[in-house]
């Protein structure tokens, strides 16, 4: 599904719940699209690796897995579907990183991009800007995984699924003010965890 149609997503979920195969297929397309965009973002500093990813079947398999996981679930509610989709997307992102940039990852030696590796290194303890290497991205995704459910849901909808705050508050059945407060809490907690701050 092309970007910019998020306002239709809830309607699609309602249709999918009633068994509309086309609606479900479009929802899955949306999740695949988010996975592709997030992967590109994660690999942005690594054009060589990104190119490798996209030309290799590995990423295609990742898309297939995501598709299959979502296709087999029964859509219970808007909230349920988006959380599930976000979690699957996050799992695939972590998996991609682990496979191709882990200690034994076969793309380890593909890190030959214009950014010298010492530039991309460093640790999150120094700052919490947008991650610029795969380790940082992996830490970020893993930290989201460990958030309390209430906060993780907010990150799922706003970041992984790309919903607007209005849409997310509607999906969760909470006021926009409550959503904003939870999003603030999410950011504060991620910041603390990823900078190894106490408390």
């Amino acid at each position, binding site marked *: 599904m*092309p*970007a910019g149609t998020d306002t239709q997503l809830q309607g699609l979920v309602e249709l999918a719940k009633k068994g509309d*195969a*086309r609606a479900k*297929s479009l929802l*899955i*397309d949306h999740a*695949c*699209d*988010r996975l*592709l*965009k*997030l992967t*590109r*973002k994660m690999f*942005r500093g690594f*054009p*060589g690796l*990104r*190119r*490798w990813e*996209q*030309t290799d079947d590995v990423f*295609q398999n990742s*898309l*297939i897995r995501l*598709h*299959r996981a979502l*296709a087999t679930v029964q859509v219970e509610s808007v909230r349920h579907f988006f959380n599930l989709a976000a979690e699957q997307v996050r799992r695939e992102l972590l998996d991609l990183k682990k496979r191709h940039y882990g200690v034994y990852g076969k793309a380890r*030696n*593909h890190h*030959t*991009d*214009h*950014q*010298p590796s010492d530039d991309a290194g460093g640790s999150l303890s120094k*700052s*919490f*800007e*947008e991650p610029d290497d795969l380790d940082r991205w992996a830490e970020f995704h893993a930290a989201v995984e460990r958030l309390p459910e209430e906060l993780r849901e907010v990150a799922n909808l*706003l*970041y992984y699924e*790309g919903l607007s705050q209005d849409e997310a508050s509607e999906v969760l059945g909470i006021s926009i*003010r409550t959503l*904003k*407060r939870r999003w*603030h*809490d999410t*950011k*504060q907690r*991620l*910041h603390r965890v990823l900078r190894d701050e106490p408390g």
Partner: protein
Amino acid sequence: MTNQDEELLAELLLHWEELHERGQDTPASELAKNRLDLIKELDRRIGVLKDTAWLDNPIEDDPEADDPRPISPHSPRTLSGRYRLDELIAQGGFAEVYRAYDTELQRTVAVKMPKPGRLESTESFQAEARRVARLKHENIVPVFDVGLEGDTCFIVTEYIEGGSLADRIVSHAIAPKQAVGWACDIAEALEYAHLNGVIHLDIKPANILIGANGRAKLADFGIAKSATKTGEFAPSLGTLRYMSTEQLEGRPTDHRSDIYSLAVVLHETLTGSLPYSSAESNVLRKEIVEGTALPSKGVPRELGQVLTKAMARSPHERHASATQFASEIRRAGVSRNPSSRWPLFGLLACLGLLVVGAGIAFTMAQPAGPKRNEPETASLQEVMAVATTNMHHEQYAKAEAGFTRALEIDTENLEALKKRGLCRLNTERPDKAAMDFDRVLARRPDDATTLRYRSKAYALLQDFPRAIADLEQVMILTPKAAEVPGEMATIYALRSLERYEQGDYQGAKDDMDTTIRFAPEAAVNYSRRGACWFQMGEYERAVDDFTDAVRRDSHQAEFYGKRSLALQKIGRFEDASNDQQKAEELTR
């Protein structure tokens, strides 16, 4: 901290955010002026929200520049009190480029700043930039200003909206004629610079920008040379791929190093691939230093011979000048064109008709009860979803393979056929595309979208009667479709071009009449019809049409130049001279 304090902090943070969204950065001390004990904690939390603002940025689709990237926190927002940095539009190993606004002259500009620590001496950088600023050529991005800000310096240049050749290579298949045309533009710029004693030394697609007039312009003159003086500037892999042997080996470089790099760029523009493309810099260096680049099979033979010469290991074996290189590729490009397909692809690409797949919503219903393959293999639905995602992201080869796989599972899947046809259309295989569309239309003869696509395929195959017949059918089926008149105009323009090239000027003129009926606002159509009148010896009418073209677009040197020729033919020498002068001014 008590629960009440937590509650108050949360409310204050919401309040800060509301104000921030309205453009006010209110300090914690003001927000919590009645609770001095909370100021420090509130200030910290505000800092966290600022640090994590990237989590709210939309994740866009562009693989190179995901979204309007924020200004680096290391960079000031306004330079010299004049250039307001609005958006980071590109960055490489050495520098960052911003879209900026010149508040004095009130125009958009591009600002390039070396990254911290990448520059040894701001003085030498500035001196180099000033020297480059003296280069004035229509195919060189002009330098407006050079300045100092803190301990770094910056260069202000014209902002070119069309993006870089690197973007085009990634997103489109580029027609060979277009590729050769752009390479000639850059060769002209290089010849001029070389004659003025300036060598570029960083010719690569990212440094070639495509202007609004469709011509290629060269950016970043001399910048790389300054950068390499630091001794610590390691060229990026992206740069390495275009470097000549002597550059890599640290031997003396001259204008022929630029010719080598331009040949590599042309190779990539033609084929989408590089002569040397190893993903590891050490291997890549070895390949370049030891090997002689051989053009890939995708390069037409005669053009390949020119490229081989330009990419020779020894500079002495290369072309003696950029002009010589340009004239050889131009000649090879024109002479090898038996099917005359190049201009068609070029024109279609210019008119934005070639890339038709991305973002199109398909309304055809999913076939009921798809036949499934082995249980452990991907289902039809999965294969279609993945292929469709690939197509939306313009990965046409991958997408095509996916749709083919879908058709192996369900041979009559019309959606797969239609989408595969689109992929084939976008990879310049209109014959194959037309076959897919034929199969769809055999089952659904009134599918207007497929008729439009097939019409484009026919146009690319130069089967104009069929292309026109398909579009006429679309006009009957969907009389209000806004795109159809433009597409009809294009097809008649293409046939007109073909007839013109064959010397059938009357036929070409008649087709331009129809083109103008469908697209009365496009200046270029009047100019083309004027050219037909000129060839037919109807100079008064030619002048009328060129005048219509000038009236609609007064910035095209070409229109004035052509009118000048027609005016000379009817003895209006003073008017002709004025037009000639105007054409020269615009070219400058």
